């Protein structure tokens, strides 16, 4: 028979204390108590470099797993790359990689729709640690680079989200796929509406403000409206309309939008040093 251990004494009292402690932490977090935010920022600063170092050490293992688990994707990618191979023959692999990286970086430095707004180029360091949090990404710049909560984040293709949390050298971006991030939009016809995400993997949707008579066609661009007190400046590309549904009950049109930016392949991004009006 096993010896009763310290770990098995007074379990009911222990679980009661832990439940109360968890509830207290939840309340503190909901009330935005400053010490909780500081602890979270501190953890972000500590964990990300540790994770980054660990990722670097385990690169060969991850590559091997990627080769196994992404076999189907790799097969398609391989076919596409074979087509491109003739054009690239003669260039060394390392030079090509460096050039590609430079091109991606240059793209971020020459984005027409952010002209007039000061920007900070950052690199996405990691995605999510859990499948329940598909709507965030982390970048390698923080408050020491002048980044603040609420600032919009874009790629050369368009809007991807805004800054949700900041630590001195890291930030968390809330992606526009998050259903809680409502965004004021404008159509080609200058009609205004409000859209939101529906989680990763689903089309973005404009479900407020577009009346039945407002012209909205498949393929039309959708940009941010930038109206007073908007979370984003005007004219940032969101995407293009891929489906229009008429809702006779609410007398509106519901627009499904394919996002301009590919959120599954984020690399370099730009943080716009633009703050929403209070």
């Amino acid at each position: 028979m096993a010896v009763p251990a310290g770990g098995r004494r007074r379990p009911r009292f222990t679980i009661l204390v832990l439940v109360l402690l968890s509830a207290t932490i939840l309340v503190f977090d909901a009330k935005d108590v400053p010490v909780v935010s500081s602890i979270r920022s501190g953890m972000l600063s500590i964990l990300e470099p540790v994770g980054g170092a660990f990722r670097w050490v385990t690169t060969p293992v991850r590559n091997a797993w990627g080769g196994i688990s992404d076999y189907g994707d790799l097969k398609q990618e391989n076919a596409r790359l074979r087509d491109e191979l003739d054009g690239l023959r003669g260039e060394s692999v390392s030079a090509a990689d460096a050039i590609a990286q430079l091109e991606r970086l240059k793209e971020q430095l020459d984005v027409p729709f952010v002209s007039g707004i000061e920007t900070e180029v950052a690199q996405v360091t990691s995605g999510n640690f859990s499948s329940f949090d598909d709507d965030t990404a982390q970048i390698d710049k923080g408050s020491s680079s002048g980044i603040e909560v609420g600032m919009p984040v874009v790629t050369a293709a368009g809007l991807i989200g805004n800054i949700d949390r900041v630590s001195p050298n890291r930030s968390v971006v809330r992606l526009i796929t998050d259903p809680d991030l409502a965004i004021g939009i404008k159509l080609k016809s200058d009609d205004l509406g409000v859209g939101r995400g529906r989680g990763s993997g689903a089309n973005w949707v404009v479900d407020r403000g577009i009346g039945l008579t407002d012209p909205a066609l498949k393929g039309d661009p959708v940009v941010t409206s930038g109206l007073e007190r908007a979370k984003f400046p005007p004219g940032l590309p969101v995407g293009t309309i891929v489906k229009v549904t008429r809702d006779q009950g609410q007398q509106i049109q519901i627009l499904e939008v394919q996002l301009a930016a590919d959120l599954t392949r984020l690399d370099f991004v730009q943080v716009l040093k633009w703050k929403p009006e209070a």
Partner: protein
Amino acid sequence: MIDSGVVLRWTLVVVTAAVFQIGLAPDFPVVGIVPDLLLAVAMAAGVAAGPRRGAIIGFWCGLLFDLMRPGPLGLSALAYAVCAYGVGSLLVSVITVRRVLAALVVFGGSFVALLIFSAGNEVLGGHALTVGHPWTIMFVVSATAGVLSVVAVPLARWAEGPGAIDSREGVLGSVDV
């Protein structure tokens, strides 16, 4: 008083799981879903060390995970603590701890923990239960936790030291639950 060696070993296990969660787990998705190593450790603590220690380790695993990601702070701590406690109570009072059974109990406990997390997230204004494919995530994460228990339970036994629940005999009647 808790043995300092036990504390040290558990700290090592939990921190290592956290580092693996950050640095490795996102790159090893199972059918596109990121495994939850800290959940596996929490449940393994319930299996190997009983309800009280399980609840404590579950709480710390959950809190650490909450600090690493957005969303309500303390929700995973609550869910993991309650479920590790439940898993520990079930095992010490009902059944002998065998490897396959332990994996099944870890699967069940993990599923309930994720259900509590998702429901709590919805109550607190999130969308963990209504957006995306939450049931698939819950099933796959729980299943991977069950599979990981093959490693996590022996690790938990090592961390718990001589006080760990015996895997061959079970502990029916030896514990004040």
